[in-house]
Each structure stands twice: as C-alpha cells, then as structure tokens.
C-alpha cells in the first residue's frame, strides 16, 4: 500500500512540478510541512495555520493566513474565500514567493512583478472590489502597528491618511474639492510602487530554484 501511494504521489508531484515550476524535492519538502501542519489530513484549515507558534509575533498574522484561503491567490478567476485548502492550493500560494529565474526577458519580469504585486494588492483589498479604499488601507496600517500598543493605534489612522493622500496626488494630480478618490486601483498600485523592486525582494530563499535543480540533478 505504501509503495503504491508513494508512486501515486510521485506522479502527482511531477504534475505539480510541471505546473508550478518547483522541483520535486521542493514539493516534497513543502508537502512534508503541509502534512505536519494539517496533522496528516488532506486539507488545511485556518486553525492549523493559526497554531504555528512562530506566527504569534507577526503583526499581520491574520492577513497572511487569509491570503492562503483567498481564491484570488489560487490562480483561479474567482473571488471569495474557502474554508479549507488542499496541498495543491497551498503550493499555489507559495508560487508567489518564487524568486525570478536567471535570464528572463523583460516581459516575463514585468509579468512576475505584476503577479507579486497582485498578491500584495489582494491582501489589502479585503472586500475584493478591485480597489483599496481608505478603510481598508487604514486597517492594513493598523495591523502593521498592532504590536506597538496605543501609540500605534493612534498614529495608524494618520499614516494611512497621509499614504492615501500621497497615492491620490501622485495618481490623480490636481483634484477639485468636490471630487472624490474612491480608492487605490491595481493600476494605481503599480504606479505608486514603481520604484519598489518587488521582483527582487519578494521571495523566500527556500523556494530558490537553482540550488534545487542542482540537487535534483544529483538525485537522478
């Protein structure tokens, strides 16, 4: 039984590896971790992630966990959230944290950039309406400062307001007093983070590809 299962998973892994670009070894590692987190269940729930002790100190813990259960991050064109995710979904979320490969074209780089920024954008846009409005932005900053105690909460609003003003002024230019800026659209988001080298910053070294392929070559 064990042998047949492992053969099955291997085939499955190969399939996943083709789709996500991860190596078999990486997928194996992530799978191990997945099983550990889900207590050997097929699916992972919010509680499982929330129980990771290292996450306790993370101010944006709730948002990180939400990101895993957000359908928009699963490369599907749906919105809304799911209650439980399987390994495939887990892996799909992880693909957003892959570093850029060597020698990619300018277009690919741009796509990668959009993909990563889209992930960030989705984390802020909690009601999935395509814009980050002031309320949502304030919540982001509040979360960020949630470990700072009362000073943080008092300042969070001001910071979010200032940031929002900045976005409005850089994207819209002059506004009449009776005009209203609804919120940050994804295009605006790209614009304000123009100088932010997300493609070289948003990655987890563990998901680095080169070393993995090297090892992969060895194992074969």
């Amino acid at each position, binding site marked *: 039984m064990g042998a047949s299962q492992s053969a099955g998973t291997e085939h499955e892994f190969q399939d996943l590896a083709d789709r996500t670009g991860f190596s078999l070894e990486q997928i194996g590692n992530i799978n191990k971790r997945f099983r550990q*987190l889900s207590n050997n269940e097929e699916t992972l729930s919010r509680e499982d992630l929330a129980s990771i002790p290292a996450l306790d100190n993370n101010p944006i813990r709730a948002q990180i966990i939400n990101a895993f259960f957000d359908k928009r991050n699963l490369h599907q064109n749906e919105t809304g959230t799911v209650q439980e995710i399987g390994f495939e979904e887990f892996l799909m979320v992880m693909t957003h944290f892959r570093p850029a490969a060597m020698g990619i074209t300018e277009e690919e780089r741009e796509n990668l950039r959009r993909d990563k920024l889209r992930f960030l954008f989705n984390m802020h846009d909690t009601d999935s309406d395509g814009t980050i409005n002031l309320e949502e932005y304030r919540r*982001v*900053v509040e979360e960020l400062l949630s470990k700072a105690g009362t000073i943080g909460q008092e300042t969070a609003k001001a910071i979010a307001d200032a940031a929002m*003003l900045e976005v409005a002024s850089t994207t819209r230019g002059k506004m009449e007093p009776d005009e209203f800026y609804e919120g940050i659209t994804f295009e605006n988001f790209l614009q304000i983070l123009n100088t932010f080298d997300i493609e070289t910053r948003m990655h987890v070294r563990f998901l680095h590809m080169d070393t993995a392929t090297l090892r992969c070559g060895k194992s074969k």
Partner: protein
Amino acid sequence: MSVRVALHSPTGSRSFLERGLLLLVMLIFLEGTVLTLGAASSPDISAQDNTGGGHDRRDDHRGIAGSHEQTNYTYTKKAFPVLSLDYHHIQVPFEISLWVLLASLMKLGFHLIPRLSGIVPESCLLIVVGLLVGGLIKLAGEEVPPVLDSNLFFLCLLPPIILDAGYFLPIRPFMENIGTILMFAVVGTLWNAFFVGGLLYAVCQIEGTYLSQVELLPCLLFGSIISAVDPVAVLAVFEEIHINELLHILVFGESLLNDAVTVVLYHLFEEYSGAGEVTPMDVVLGVICFLIVSLGGIAVGAIYGILAAFTSRFTSHTRVIEPLFVFVYSYMAYLSAEMFHLSGIMALIACGAVMRPYVEANISHKSHTTVKYFLKMWSSVSETLIFIFLGVATVAGPHAWNWTFVSVTVILCLVSRVIGVVGLTFIINKFRIVKLTTKDQFIVAYGGLRGAIAFSLGYLLNKDHFPMRTMFLTAIITEIFFTVFVQGMTIKPLVDLLAVKKKQEAKRSINEEIHTQFLDHLLTGIEDICGHYGHHHWKDKLNRFNKKYIKKCLIAGERYKEPQLIAFYHKMEFKQAIELVESGGGVKLPSAMPSQVSMQNIQPKKLPPAVAERALPQFTKGREEEIRKILRSNLQKTRQRLRSYNRHTLVADPFEDGWNDFLLKKQRMIELEKKMTEMSNYLTVPAAPPDSPTMCRARLASGDDFKAEKAGAKVIPDPNAFYNIKASSEGVPTIQVDLASPQSPDSVNMLNEFSKRGAKDQGLGQREVATRDEDQGLMMKPSSAGKEEKGEEEGGNKNPGLMRCLSDPGPSNEDEEDEPFLP
C-alpha cells in the same frame, strides 16, 4: 584687477569669463599660498609626528631664547617693540589653515565650472592642482613638505571620510549583500595580492630588467599594498556617476572591508621580509591574526558605538554638545583600534553603524543636522586635501622610474582585478538570488580604484629594510594615477554606454515604507509557515530582541517603543513642516505631500451636497501671495525677537518639541478637524498635511465683534487654550484657533465669513487691528486682506466685511513659551 573690470563689461560671455577670472584669482591666491608654504619649508603639518614634536620643542626653545634676548634689550633700555613679527609662533596652525582654505577654494572653484566637472572627476582635478602647487613650491626653490605623511593621513585625514561613510552606510543593502561584499573584500583582495605579487616577482627574475635584486616577500608586500581598493577614491568617483545602489554598495563595501586583509598582509609581509622564511605556522597565525584584526576592530567599534548611544541618552539638557559625542566616540574607536593594530576602518564603520539608530532617536533634530553637516564638511575637506596632497607628494618624492616594473604593475593590477571579479562572481552567483550580470561585473572590476591609502602604506615602509621603497612608491603613484585618471574619467561614459541601471532619485514615500514593512512581515510569516528558518526569520528575531532590550537601554524616554513606521512617518512630517515654512506658505509644496489633494478628496463624503456647495472659493493667486508674505514676515519677526542670550543654550526652535507636545498637537488637530467639518468649512489654503503637527491658526471674525475678538486674543497667552470658539452677537461663529506652538504659523486656515458691515465699523475695525498689530506681533489688516473683495464691490457702502486675520503670538505669550529654554 583692472583687467577683470575691463573684461567684465561684455555681457554676452560674462558668466564664462567670470568663471575663468575667478579661477585666475584663485591661481594668484594659490601662488601666494605656495610662496608662504615654500618659505616655511618645514615638516609643519605633521605635528603629531615625533620629529614634529621635536621641532615644536625647538621652537619653544627659540621662543624662550628670544624672550631672553628681549629682556636683555629692555635691560639695555632699547625701545619697546610696538610691532614685532613672530611667524614661527603661529606657523603650524597657520599653514594648516592655509591648506584647508586652499582645498575649500578649489572645491568651490570647480563647481563654478559645470562643463569641466561634467567631464573630469573632481579627484583628477584636485590631483592636478596638487601637482601645480607642488611644482610651484619647487619653482620657488624650496623643499616640498612631506604633506602626505602617513601619520597625518591615517590619524587626521582618513577618519572623517570613513566615519562619514560608516555613519551614513545604507545598512539594508549592505547587510543584504554582505556575503558578496565579504567575498570580494577578503578572497578578492587576497587573490589580487598574491597574483600581482607573485607574477611581479616572476617578471623581476627575467634577465635584463635589472630587477633581480627584488625578492619575493617585498614583492608580495607590494602586491598587498597595491591590491586593496581605496574607499576614498571609490567614494569620490562613484558619487559622481550615480550608479545603482547594488553596484555602489558592492564596490564601496569591498573597499571598506578589505582594510582588515590589507592590514594583516601588510604587517605579515613586513615582519617576515627581514627574516625571509615563512613557515606554514605563520600562515595559520596570519589567518588567526586576520580574524582578530577584523572582528576585534568591529568589536571595538561596536563597544564605542553602544557607549555613544548610551551617552546620548542623557544629553537632553545639554543639546549643544550632543554632536560632539558622536565625533569623539568614533574617533576614540578608531584610535583604540589602531592602538592594537586592529582595523581602524572597520572599527569606525561598526561604530557609526551601531550608534546611528539610537543616537538619532535621542538627539534633537538640530543636533542631527549638525552631525550630518559636520561629517559631510569634514569628509569633503579631507578628501580634497588627500587628493591635493597626492599631487604634491608626487612632485616631492624622490622617484625611481623603472619602465618594466611600473608597466607590469599597472597591467597586472588590471588583469588580476578582472580575473578576480569574474571568477568570484561565478561562485557567488550560485548563491545569489539576484544575479550579477556581465555589466555589473564589468563595473565592479572597473570601479576598483586605488588611492591614497596605498600610497601612505608605501610611505610607511622602512628604507633600510626595503631599498626599493622609492621604486615601489613611484609604481604605487603611477597605479593610483592610472586608476583615478583613466578609469575614473572613463567610467562615467562607460556607465552611460552600457546603460547600467542608475540610481533612482525618488524620495522614499510613505507608501513604500508601509509596503517595505508589510513585505518584511509577510516574508517572515511565509518562512514560518514553510517551517524554514531563513534570513527573514532571523532578522525578525534580531529586530524583536533589539526592540525589547537594546532600545530600552539606549533610547531615552518613551521613544524606544516607537515602531519604525511611525518614526518614518514623523520624520517625513517633520521634513514637510520645515519645507512648508521654507517654501513660504506651502503653495509650491514638494510632491511628497500633495497640495492639490486634500483630506476631503479621499474621505468618504458625509456631508450633504448642499453643504459641499457652500465650500469656500479658492483664493486667487494674488491673495495667496499676500498671505504668504505676511506669514513670512510674521515668522521672521518671531525669529528676530531673541531674548536673553545664553552661550550654552540654543534658541528655541519652532519645530523642536518634545515627543509629548507632538502627540498633544496631533490630538488637538484632530479635534479641530472635527469641529471644522461640523461647521462645514474646509481647509483650503494651503492644504496642509492632514493631522500633521503643522501649526495652524485660523481666525474667523464676523467683523463687528472686534471686542470679542480682542478678548479672544487675550486668551492666547494661556498655552492650554489652543482654540476658542465664540459665538458672536449675531450668531455667526467666530473661531479663533491657536494650534500648537504659536511661533511658526506655517499654514493658515482661512474661513470666510461674509457679513454686512457698515464702512464706519470697518474703519473702526481697521484701527483696532492696526493697534493690535503693534502690540501683538502681526494681524492682517482687512484693508489688505480684503482688498479684492473691496475691489469687486467698489463704491458700495456696505462692503462685505471679510476679515482674515492672522494672529501672532503676543509678546506676553513668548516669555512664557521660552521659559523652558532659559536656564
């Protein structure tokens, strides 16, 4: 001078001529300097030197002898000398000042000729100036002073530059690339030293070069001196080419960290070049020595850095000497490290980098500015002097030119650098996520400039042990000139040609800061979920430890609790407030904070449209101008009123408030905003940063109740009465807002209220205002403020009584306010 006047008249090419003449004048001055210096002809500036000390003593002796003579003269009843010349008395400081003045003037001169500085890097020009000065001294028939003496260089000229670099080291990119930097600095330098030294020795053994007396160890020593990239030269050139941050930190970081390698290699080879034999044991000792030199340097620096941070915790009452601690502790760190032959450069870097975050949180804004300016000033003067001295030393030194040796050195340096960079990048790229491209490698290799450190190390060599010292020095100078002139001048066009990514000049925005923080936490979270303890995990741990324990010890008051984001936000706010005042009212507000968009644009609308229509019209340009003018004069007035002066107390800065004040103001501002919204008025001119601690005051008068107004004005002195709301007799709201420190109104909230007033009343009002103007600082007169309205409705007896009054702290107010700042 007459020539200058004559040439001055044609206005067509005036600017160019002017510049040329300025340079001419400078050259004349330079000649004067040279003559004085030539006449002095003593190893003057090396006062720290032993010989210098001896010289001083001799001077003293002579001085005493002179006084004896003088007493003798008085004894013989000779006339008392009314005016006497004693140049030796002031010689050393005078000449130092002259050199510094020369350097500063040169720096000034080059920036007046933009076309020249666009082509040639400043460092090259300075070396040329040095050559000229040296040549003039020689022409004057005097001995050229050994200006680039090693003691002077290492103890006086180098530390400011390194401290400046260390204090303002961009920690984040530095730490992110620390592996690559260390690889280049340690392995790269070792490779260069042995490659150049070894091959040079091989070349020397070839028959016919007349260099067969050169042994292996001196060659290796020479290799280790010549192989280190020089931070001074790199800084000077890289600052002008504006290369992207990654490349800059790679080359610059390498030049800083290779110091330890250079120090160890230098001492090792110097030690054994006499003995001649190197055993494997010595190699092991060398490695241990390297670890001690580098880590010891860092430890010494870190200790002094922490001490400096701790000291700055208690300086809140003696702000004037705050900056001094930064400099003195850093210098002590450098000297202490040098005392044990540890790497002084690494100690300085560590000291600056460690103390900065804590010191900055503790010291006042003004002190911070002082530190910044002093560091920049010292480092730029030092840098200028170093390059000038390099030129002078070139003229001065005895040279032993050997074509083979020099050309082989230059070629080998280039070759070894290229091979080293390419080879190391090949290894490093296996571990890097952001790979170094071929272009990057080229710039890193090409940016490996050599400089004055190499020269000074060569200068330190003992002539008895190294008979070929002069030849070494000549080769070092040639190599420096080659890198600085050829590479330094061509690197800029090459960067343009290769389209290497340049530095983005964008100011850091609050959005970027939010997302940087967010991303950090996100990546830490993802690593934790993956169960992989990587960089982010450890960084987060370190950050938390820092916040929990270290900051608590090293930062005074409550500020240690302040998260980075809030600190950044306050800094930004602060900057804007200052810019706002400096730009004179905030009409041309810098792009960081929008002036065109105000809070109402992003706030979900709560007001009914009817209310929104009542929004006040925007002020016209002319009136804005007027308001700004008044604000400006207002500001100057308050600044001019300097009260009792104390040498050790700084004049109160309008922006310098305690932390609590800051929060208090913010709170008040929010409250005010609420009130304003309730009253359906908008912040119009200028759209101040919302919730910012900008000092706003608005005065809304309904025209007829000046009495009430005046009563209101009298309330101002009470610092706690930040705003008063008064209902006028007619029920028109009268608001007098006095937000925050009344010393600097950099933003005005204007609330228009039109009410029908008789001309008589208006006149009365004007008079009232005028009188108050005298005793209260400044009030905007209705005649000027309401000019436009008047013009529009000219002839009408019933002008709209538009009152815009800007109030200023009354004198009574100021005394109270200044109290905390007076002893």
